[in-house]
């Protein structure tokens, strides 16, 4: 067997492998079955089953398998949705922020729609050292502000992440809290304070 034929074989194998990956990503698309299998309940209407472009892409791909061109598009489009705070002030009240981070309710059919939504940050992230019951789906955010300081770049980056995580990491698992209107501007500021305020439990 010649060197070039080995090369061809190798390329063919690689191609086959990559095709296989794509084929697996393209499993039967469940949108129609989803519509048939659910019913609206209170605030959780059937419209919630309809995917936006990012959701559809991130159903098909993960951050690791998303083609680079698509990744760039998602990132750009998401970045354009990020609205900085109207008054230019990033930091609210860290005590309110802690409460938002601890609250897991909001937007479920079982939740009271007149109550403010929670951020449920502790479900996925370590924040204040005193809270033992933290999840590990996302990275630890302990000492977030202490490690970074309140530089404009750090503040902007955190705001962007909270507002629309897809602007940072396409197909991130983190909800788009600002873009999807899960949290309002004041709540996002309060979470920013939880992350950055030197007196916040996160930075002790």
């Amino acid at each position, binding site marked *: 067997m010649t060197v070039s034929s080995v090369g061809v074989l190798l390329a063919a194998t690689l191609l086959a492998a990559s095709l296989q990956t794509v084929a697996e990503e393209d499993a039967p698309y469940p*949108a129609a079955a*989803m519509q048939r*299998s659910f*019913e609206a309940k209170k605030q959780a209407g059937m419209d919630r*089953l309809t995917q936006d472009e990012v959701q559809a892409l991130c159903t098909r791909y993960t951050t690791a398998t998303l083609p680079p061109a698509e990744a760039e598009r998602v990132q750009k489009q998401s970045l354009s949705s990020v609205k900085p705070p109207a008054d230019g002030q990033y930091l609210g009240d860290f005590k309110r922020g802690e409460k938002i981070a601890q609250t897991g309710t909001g937007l479920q059919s079982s939740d009271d729609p007149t109550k403010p939504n929670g951020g449920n940050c502790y479900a996925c992230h370590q924040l204040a050292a005193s809270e033992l019951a933290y999840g590990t789906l996302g990275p630890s955010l302990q000492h977030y502000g202490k490690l970074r300081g309140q530089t404009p770049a750090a503040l902007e980056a955190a705001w962007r992440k909270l507002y629309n995580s897809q602007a940072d990491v396409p197909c991130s698992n983190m909800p788009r809290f600002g873009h999807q209107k899960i949290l309002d501007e004041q709540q996002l500021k309060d979470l920013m304070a939880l992350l950055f305020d030197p007196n916040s439990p996160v930075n002790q």
Partner: protein
Amino acid sequence: MNTRFAARLLYTMLASGTLLLAGAVRADTSTQDAIAEYREMFGDDNPAELWQARGEALWHEARGPQKANLEACDLGLGPGVIAGAYAQLPRWFADTGQVQDLETRLVTCVTSLQGIPRDDFLKVKFGDGEKKSELEALTAYVVAASRGKPLTLPLKHPAEQAAFDLGKAVFRYRAGPHDFACATCHGEPGKRIRLQELPQLNTALGAREAYTHWPAYRISQGELRSMEWRLQDCFRQQRLPQLKFGSEVAIGLTMYLAKTAEGGVLAAPGIKR
């Protein structure tokens, strides 16, 4: 930079990194040990037994317009065979022409053998305190009769394969205001939500860990919960509308989880937080 120096530097970095990591793991371990101690203290005294006993009584009691019991119910292994039946569900049933999970099959038996209307039987699908669910009691009874049996799902019928394929696709379907899919929380190994370990349900190991212990007594609710409840409640927390009982997606996801967990030995009903 000479190689030896580089190697030493790398070694130092690794060592310090390892130390840091070890510290973090240690802090975590004490919490996890305490949680393990909490779980151990429940021992074998699982209130799920109360549901099993109620289910057993219901199974043998002549009820409904036809004053019949459920002893002729065919759960896939022939009329009246309960032992091991849950280990081979969901499956395709010729008499209904459908892939059915345990709960929808029990509905078939109750309606056809006892003549109880479906809606009457399903009035309390999921129990809540004084409102007790007959379905959950029967489920507990049948499931317990498969303890120690390995999950076996050959998917010989094309409809079974189709259910599996649908479930697999739904597992990754991101939607709703939070962009959640099943895979968001159950697609990676070794993760936790708050203090609860998240089984990676698209692997045999994770699916076995989870599936073999469901249905389960949920301490938080003081209720025995079925797989249909488990899936419906996951979608509630995903912020999606309500999953319909016995729907394509409910059966598909159950099939996907059961098949992925194939070979796992059933230990249900379990006891969960």
